[in-house]
């Protein structure tokens, strides 16, 4: 490890937050009168320690309700902590929610003024910065119309443009950028890079793994209010994906020493007949029962995450309940939008259809090379009759994640295993 750094911008030590939720307002009075607690307590943060150095961009990952926003609010100072300390050095600006502190009935221009003053600018400073803010937000045409008439994306643009105009030393961003269109997001990230080059420290919450891996130096996973992992953005991002899609490692979140990254093999179910984990709808006439389906790596271990270009195998098994003539069977890979990207059946692969008797088992394996690009994919499995009627079909029975090659568009669907060369030719 490197020597301890001294240029700390933000330090949280042993930070805890317990919300006291009063089910009825009268419970507050009852508590005041009797001195006995009448509140339901919910621990949002538990012993969170985090050091962020100057000029660093740190991403915060975590499932819904993991305590991300609570942490940012405490850092920004809008929420009080229950225990622990927060130390910040420099001017801090937070974009916590959309249209933060903006008044819906005021025009965009008035809101810039009010927002600027709220952040401690003088009227002269605000006047000087109003035009650049309007330019950055690209809202000049509507800047004198009430804020409430803006679309969500426009509100986000104005919020962001105003918030970063103060040249903060520490910028805290809570998913506010997600609503802007791609072009505006790009410009925001350009501006964030600019701020960072100037030594600004940035704390960023995002659900988008690509954002985290591209913009953050380090990342943190919060799970149930605790720090599950801290490390380089790439390491932590892949750990987060495992956390998201594997019930087993999610349970490990509450483990006493959670900081060590779980190895991929730990996630193997061990059973030869993996139970449907992420299954959606399941239907069919019941003539056959799908008894198992899984994705295996080269060594035959069940996996849910793989590199693009990795060899893998889909395997599914079924048992006949009744006699079925001319069984058809297959699987299909869909993306998040439900578009089928790949699929195969015995019909499409010109395999003869077999007749099976009750109690007989069928195993289908398909070896393939995963040339899909980075993303999350879902697999349908199905058995049916020759006439197309289904005997057992499971929608999105399997979910898997592909790590993309880092060198192609993040929006790419497939990995074409390309190289890229530039040759200069003299005239």
């Amino acid at each position, binding site marked *: 490890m490197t020597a301890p750094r001294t240029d700390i911008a933000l330090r949280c030590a042993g930070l805890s937050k317990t919300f006291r939720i009063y089910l009825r307002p009268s419970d507050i009075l009852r508590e005041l009168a009797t001195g006995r607690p009448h509140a339901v307590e919910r621990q949002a943060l538990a012993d969170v320690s985090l050091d962020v150095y100057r000029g660093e961009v740190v991403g915060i990952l975590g499932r819904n309700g993991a305590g991300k926003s609570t942490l940012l609010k405490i850092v920004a100072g809008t929420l009080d902590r229950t225990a622990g300390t927060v130390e910040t050095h420099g001017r801090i600006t937070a974009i916590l929610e959309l249209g933060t*502190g903006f008044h819906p009935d005021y025009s965009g221009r008035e809101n810039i003024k*009010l927002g600027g003053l*709220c952040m401690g600018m003088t009227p002269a400073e605000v006047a000087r910065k109003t035009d650049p803010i309007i330019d950055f937000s690209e809202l000049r045409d509507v800047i004198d119309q009430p804020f409430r008439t803006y679309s969500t994306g426009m509100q986000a643009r104005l919020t962001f443009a105003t918030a970063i105009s103060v040249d903060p030393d520490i910028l805290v961003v809570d998913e506010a950028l997600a609503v802007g269109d791609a072009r505006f997001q790009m410009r925001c990230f350009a501006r964030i890079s600019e701020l960072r080059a100037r030594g600004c420290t940035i704390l960023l919450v995002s659900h988008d793994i690509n954002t985290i891996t591209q913009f953050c130096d380090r990342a943190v996973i919060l799970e149930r209010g605790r720090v599950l992992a801290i490390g380089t953005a790439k390491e932590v991002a892949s750990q987060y994906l495992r956390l998201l899609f594997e019930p087993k490692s999610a349970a490990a979140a509450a483990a006493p020493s959670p900081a060590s990254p779980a190895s991929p093999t730990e996630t193997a179910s061990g059973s030869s007949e993996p139970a449907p984990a992420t299954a959606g709808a399941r239907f069919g006439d019941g003539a056959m029962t799908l008894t198992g389906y899984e994705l295996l790596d080269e060594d035959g271990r069940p996996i849910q995450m793989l590199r693009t270009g990795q060899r893998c195998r889909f395997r599914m098994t079924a048992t006949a309940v009744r006699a079925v003539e001319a069984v058809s069977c297959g699987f299909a890979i869909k993306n998040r939008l439900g578009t089928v990207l790949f699929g195969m059946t015995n019909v499409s692969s010109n395999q003869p259809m077999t007749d099976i008797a009750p109690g007989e088992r069928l195993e289908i394996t398909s070896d393939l090379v995963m040339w899909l690009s980075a993303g999350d994919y879902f697999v349908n499995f199905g058995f049916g009759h020759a006439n197309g009627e289904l005997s057992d079909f499971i929608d999105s029975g399997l979910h898997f994640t592909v790590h993309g090659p880092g060198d192609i568009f993040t929006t790419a669907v497939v990995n074409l295993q390309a190289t890229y060369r530039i040759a200069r030719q003299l005239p």
Partner: protein
Amino acid sequence: MTVGRTLIDVPGHVSASRSLVRLARTYRYLLVELAVRDVRDRFAGHVLGVVWTIAHPILLMGIYVGIFTFVFPARGLTAPGRTQDLTVYILAGLIPWLCFQEVLARSTTAITGNASLVKQIVFPVELLPIKTVLGCLPTQLVATAFLVGLALLTGLGSPALLLFPVVLVLQVAAMLGVAFALSAVGAFVRDLRELVVVFCAVNLFLQPILYAPAQLPRVLRPVLWLNPFSHLVWVAQDVFFFGAITHPVSWVVLTVGALVTLGLGYRLFRGLKHRFGDML
């Protein structure tokens, strides 16, 4: 620390007031902007807009003058015979009370009504009750200008009018203290608003505004003396009606009371403000 000790903890009040002044100085631009908007928002969407800030109190005063001059006959007051004097007497006490009443009613929701500011941005919440008080002042200032004119017209003008700024400062201090306390408690107990509204309706009659203390049965008079708001009324009447300090005790009570209220209110607010985020 007992309540009694806190009450007379003068150094504590002084340091609280000092930090308050520092805060108001740091955020003076924002404060002015917020107060201006507070006034403007009340008439947002109105055809006459900000004109109502002046027109509203003048119309109101005009109506009061009409009622007190022609509808209520003047009887049994200290300046008998001249009905306009009754008007000055009543307005002298009524104007500060109307302003105070507005502060009381509006400060209970100063925090809860601005949840977006409290929750979402790094914002000095202390400004919210201050802004509420500042936003209530223009009405009183316009009405007072009207009253000064009326007092001069009816020959009740005196050098005592010069004491008005002193009264105003004390009144603002008291209003700030009350606004801090009510806005902080109002964040936790929302029923406070209803209680305050009822209190305001009753309290109008528990002060010597619409009548002279002498008109009250002797047994009820201690109520006037125990009501802190009465002293503001007497002091204002000294300035606009009696033209001399005829209620020295009230001047002392108002001065001490206003400063203690400010100190206590602000300290209560500071003690509770960390928990606002949890409640909204």
